[in-house]
């Protein structure tokens, strides 16, 4: 009389486990669905012949071709872009690239130096700087955008009062804004690598006659190079995709690609937007994946 209940409880356990497993699988599938289905839809419809997203009419590359031609054959594109900045997609793309390249260069140099300083030098107030370095990563982007706008307005007024020069928002302010948040990301990536880097290598360099500067140049930086590169790619991706900070810091004529897309959407969603977004997605993916690959290569050194 003891065997039966045991068997029953065994069977019950197995059932619970099976339900549990299925539930987990379903849960994972749902989560992935939420994350990636919209993106999948976007990519698929960027190849749709129909002007409207809802109906599938057949495969076409027209939207991509029209983008390459500067949106010429799509009257819509030009008008919508014009609503914000008076330019087409090509000027927006150009702005985005200029901002991303300049901001990345600045943020990489400054962020690398900051990361090295955080890890290798003791200076008064270091704990405070250490907390501040994470701030741009954790505060809401909108806060960052608003505070930058307030800051620029203040500075402009000050400059005008002192010198009489009138300054306006534009690409330079967008670049400064992007540098402001990218520095932290670069610094964090560089620093993480530096933590793993045995300081004895730098001591060895000094032991062999290298002063601090040569040690930095010949040993520390070459060993950090993969992290610096991956930090730079991260900064580039963030800059290219950024909407919020750009929105607050760009004036007239400084429309970047994300701003341009937003301007278009305000009128109607056409497959041209899907095509732009798909291209941006592809570019981001390539950048992030190469940044990961560089970091993985770096493991061989350590």
């Amino acid at each position, binding site marked *: 009389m003891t065997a039966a209940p045991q068997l029953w409880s065994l069977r019950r356990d197995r059932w619970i486990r099976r339900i549990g497993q299925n539930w987990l699988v379903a849960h994972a599938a749902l989560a992935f669905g939420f994350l990636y289905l919209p993106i999948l839809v976007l990519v698929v419809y960027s190849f749709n012949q129909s002007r409207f997203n809802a109906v599938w009419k057949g495969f076409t590359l027209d939207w991509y071709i029209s983008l390459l031609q500067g949106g010429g054959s799509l009257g819509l594109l030009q008008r919508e872009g014009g609503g914000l900045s008076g330019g087409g997609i090509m000027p927006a793309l150009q702005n985005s690239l200029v901002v991303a390249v300049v901001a990345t260069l600045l943020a990489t140099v400054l962020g690398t130096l900051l990361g090295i300083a955080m890890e290798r030098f003791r200076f008064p107030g270091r704990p405070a700087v250490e907390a501040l370095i994470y701030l741009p990563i954790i505060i809401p982007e909108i806060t960052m955008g608003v505070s930058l706008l307030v800051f620029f307005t203040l500075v402009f007024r000050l400059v005008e009062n002192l010198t009489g020069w009138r300054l306006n928002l534009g690409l330079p302010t967008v670049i400064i804004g992007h540098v402001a948040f990218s520095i932290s990301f670069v610094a964090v990536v560089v620093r993480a690598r530096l933590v793993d880097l045995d300081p004895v290598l730098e*001591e*060895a360099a000094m032991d*062999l*006659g*290298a002063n601090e500067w040569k040690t930095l140049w010949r040993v520390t930086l*070459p*060993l950090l190079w993969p992290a610096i590169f991956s930090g730079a790619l991260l900064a580039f991706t963030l800059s290219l995709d950024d909407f919020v900070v750009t929105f607050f810091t760009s004036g007239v004529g400084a429309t970047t690609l994300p701003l341009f897309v937003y301007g278009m959407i305000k009128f109607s969603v056409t497959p041209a937007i899907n095509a732009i977004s798909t291209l941006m997605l592809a570019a981001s993916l390539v950048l992030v994946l190469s940044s990961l690959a560089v970091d993985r290569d770096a493991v061989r050194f350590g």
Partner: protein
Amino acid sequence: MDKLAVELVEVFKLFKGPGGTDATAVNGIHLQIQDGEFFSLLGPSGCGKTTTLRMIAGFEQPSRGEIFIHGQPMAGRPPFHRSVNTVFQNYALFPHLTVAQNIAFGLEMDNLPKAQVRRRVGDMLALVRLEGKENAYPRQLSGGQQQRVALARALVKQPEVLLLDEPLGALDLKLRKEMQIELKHMQQQVGITFVFVTHDQEEALTMSDRIAVMHQGNVLQVGSPVDIYERPADAFVAGFIGESNFLAGQVAERNHQEAVVLVDNHLPIRVSLEDALVNIGHAVTLVLRPEKATLHSPGSCTEHCWAGTVEETLYLGTDTRYVVRLTDKSRIVVRNQNLHASDAQNFPPGSPVHVGVHPSALRILAAS
């Protein structure tokens, strides 16, 4: 002309411990290292060997005291302005540079002409027998090869003093023995002063001209390997270098060569005094090296003899190690050479034996 390569005068190093208390890593040591000497710092883990070496190299500043290299005071001088080079414990080879680039690094820092750099790197590769490996990266080398690159990288600078921090610590026993001989040979060849850190007493004994034994930040004794082994300055040195039996006793008589010591519960024993400063009535410790006592079957012992029973017999190949329990219950370790194949079976556990001790086999220490 000063003949000292390195001199440490009352050098202290304190580290800020947790809670702001200072921990003393090096406690006012004096060292005088001769030019061309193979000098070892020997001591257990944490005794301050690495800290001492790092102060000579310039990675740490002494909290107090002075360091001189060839008579020059080193205070405030950074590592890159000192004529010493270091072989680091785990080699610290530059992973992004090839073997040849690693070795050339120090010469390039001195801005030597390219042709000269190439020639000297070539010479070094030959010295450490790594020809053909110049384009390999450190990760592609075996431990022994990496060790030799580290050595070459430091030696190529022709430093006045070479500092080595447990350079053989990461090698397996066989390779370690080979490298010991190779390193000693190389030092004689290049004639550079070596300051060699190790916690392996056998390594220190076989390689060094002189050894400083360190313990808890202090230098307990400086001397040749024979000095250190045969005439240990105190019980710690006697216990750390090789194996020792310690016997407590009291001085009953003395003249200037010998003393008669009453070892607890035993017959008075005659001991050579050497440099020991002891007087009648002093409590002393006698140090007896296991290999300097001899085992005899009862009746055949002709020296000073203690009766006992064999408790443990351990066959070690060249010799046999016995633990003998004496009649007063104290234990004594004896090691005798196996001169004949049958020697190992002479005294199985349980055998009644006599332990023979010659006066010259004992080292007398003032009890601390």
